[in-house]
């Protein structure tokens, strides 16, 4: 069973993300063989021209989406942390969409059931959005790695400031 510390998810670095939406194309193409942003499991938000970030499932511990499903259509994989959707059980009620703080659960325009990032688990070369991102803004991380990165970045800034003064 995967522990919280080992659980992987996709993180976007907002300093690097330019809002190009290539991840959306890569995702919809890899999962459904079409170019269609509304079938992408990762979505780009441009809050302001200078604020861009891509958002997708964070594979939470005790995920709110799973808890919210009244039909037990959602479960979390013990091995990967991925949210598993039983399409036969899902009736598209949308409670999981409401429950997710990140907007990672989405309603499929055709099947009318929900879908979510599966880390391209059937692709030998891993998540396609990460592979295609031209800015290398997307990475597969664990929470520990994220914390390490944040510390490194903070220390770099600290010393950079010192160098300047």
């Amino acid at each position, binding site marked *: 069973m995967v522990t919280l510390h080992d659980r992987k998810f996709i993180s976007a670095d907002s300093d690097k993300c*330019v*809002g*190009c*939406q*290539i991840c959306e*194309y*890569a995702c919809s*193409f890899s999962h*459904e*063989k*079409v*170019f*269609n*942003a*509304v*079938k992408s499991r990762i979505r780009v938000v*441009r809050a302001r*021209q*200078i*604020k*861009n970030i891509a958002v997708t499932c964070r594979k939470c511990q005790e995920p709110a989406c799973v808890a919210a499903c009244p039909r037990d259509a959602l479960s979390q994989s013990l091995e990967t942390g991925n949210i598993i959707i039983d399409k036969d059980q899902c009736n598209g009620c949308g409670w999981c969409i409401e429950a997710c703080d990140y907007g990672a659960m989405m309603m499929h*325009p055709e099947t009318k059931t929900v879908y979510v990032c599966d880390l391209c688990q059937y692709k030998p070369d891993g998540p396609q959005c990460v592979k*295609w991102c*031209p*800015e290398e803004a997307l990475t597969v991380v664990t929470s520990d790695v994220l914390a390490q990165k944040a510390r490194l970045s903070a220390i770099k800034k600290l010393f950079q400031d010192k160098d300047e003064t």
Partner: protein
Amino acid sequence: MLGYAGTVLYVDLTTGKTRTEKLTEETAKKYVGGIGLGMKLWLSNSKAGVNPLSPENPLVLALGPVSGTMFPTGGNGHAFISKSPATGGVGEAVSHGTFGAELKRAGYDAIVLTGKAEKPVYLWIDDESIQLLDASNICGKSPPETEDAIKDELGDYYVRVASIGLAGEKQSKIANIINEKTRAAGRTGLGAVMGSKNLKAIAVRGTRDITVAKPDVFMDMVREFHERMKGPAVQKYRTLGTVDNISVTNELMCMPTRNYSASHFEKTENINAEVLNERYVAKIIACNSCAMRCEHEALVREGPYKGSLARMEYDNLWALGPNVGVDKLDAIIRAAELCNYYGLDATSTGVAISFLMDCHEKGLLSHDQLENIDPHFGNGEAVVQLVEKIGKREGIGELLADGVKVAAEKIGKNAAELAQHIKGLEVTGYDLRCLKTAALAAAVSFRGADHNRSGAFALDLRGKVDRLKAERGRGKLVKENEDIFALIDSFIICKNARNTLYNELGDLAKLYSAVTGAEVTPQDLSVAGERINTLAKLINTREGLTRNDDTLPWKVMNQPISDDGPVKGSVVTQDELDLMLDDYYQARGWAVEGIPSKEKLKELGLQEFQNIVEA
């Protein structure tokens, strides 16, 4: 045929009725898409001599065959086409962002807008559902505000919006159409055409799949172009941005300064790309599908213009900087932001202001006309104030809001000599007196003064030809470059990315086949490029433009460059222009008056428009 949605949407704003027509494979292949398809649809749906600001003038919105795909820069473009109120000839302007991709997913290749709504409306396209919604409560808002208001009203934050600002509502002939806050279909005053129809905005949501004919070939191309975009071909755009040209043109003494009073700006070091990037660029962002990302967002962090945010490129920085003698980047960024706020073409607005300053310096204006503004060259605050006045069509702004040609007519005296325009469209930042290939290209450009119809200025700048010499052979060079550019604007690939097309026609042919499944050769596309340029000429001919309109601004032909240096004394004489015009028309297979021959029309498959050249 994949690539195309196969549908053209017709919207009659007078009656509110809509209908769709199939886009035939033949038309698609012949005119490709974008400006080519748009001009064909405009010509077939309008009558000769139509008033550009009347309900009868169609406004066409067209996409390319690769719009909506993952092809870098190609996935995101759209073009507006109509009769230009500024030139009286064909008006077209291309923009990028995400709007084009969204519209393709909604299922359309083009929209033909005719008529005039009784009250201000916006067009809401939600896949096959088409509605005209009341826009009275968003009138007067800027394009960025309009976008936010429409998203709020529709409750959908992934809706993409193209809209006009106050300038378009007031039918200013230098008004543009802005999508996604900072992207503009800028030139030829098409915002005024939209305003004349009482159409404030077009909002789109598309949910359909886009597929390509040969996914494997296509994805290999995408990967290849991603690599090219990280390489030297577009390094300038990725790093310093197009603003880097300020230093290039200044050094070569071909940057028009203070309304063509000089050809270089002595204070360039205060506004160059290094300073802009170091002090102001807060973020470089990308259009949809683009791996090159070149949009430099400049933010003013302190001072009187604190908080101003604008996308800065060579064109708007030149027009609102050296062209008006201003070396204060914060004021330039503020002025650029205001151009977006009112929905004004920044190039034309800057040239209108430099024209006013020139008139002021030469004593052609009365004190009363100027109110409390002091429009001398170099006064950045005056530029900011004037953009506001033009946007609102207030006071002196009323005089300038229709561009310099109209303003010069109103002022009279010899103001026309100071009006830097061709066919009624204001010039761009390349001194045509010492860039003679660019001078020919600007004179013959079907949409008026512009460097983006052929990019011929690059031949002069890079020393591929003797830029100070007018000689035979330039006609063929301009024609070839025009044909490529027309194609690029019909596929709708971003012109900033054109250097990634290592094998221009070959790359485009491969892309077209991979997306559509229809096999085309580079030669087929070359002919299509020629066809599209000839079609534009047919429109201009039908609308009454002649060889006399293929000319240059007065200063370019009568006021030699006075700056000391290698270009001193340069000017384009009528003899030189005539020599190059004859050469160009000949290269195009047009008669000496610049009218396409019947044989040429037959060769290009344009016989259906033969009556235009017979008239």
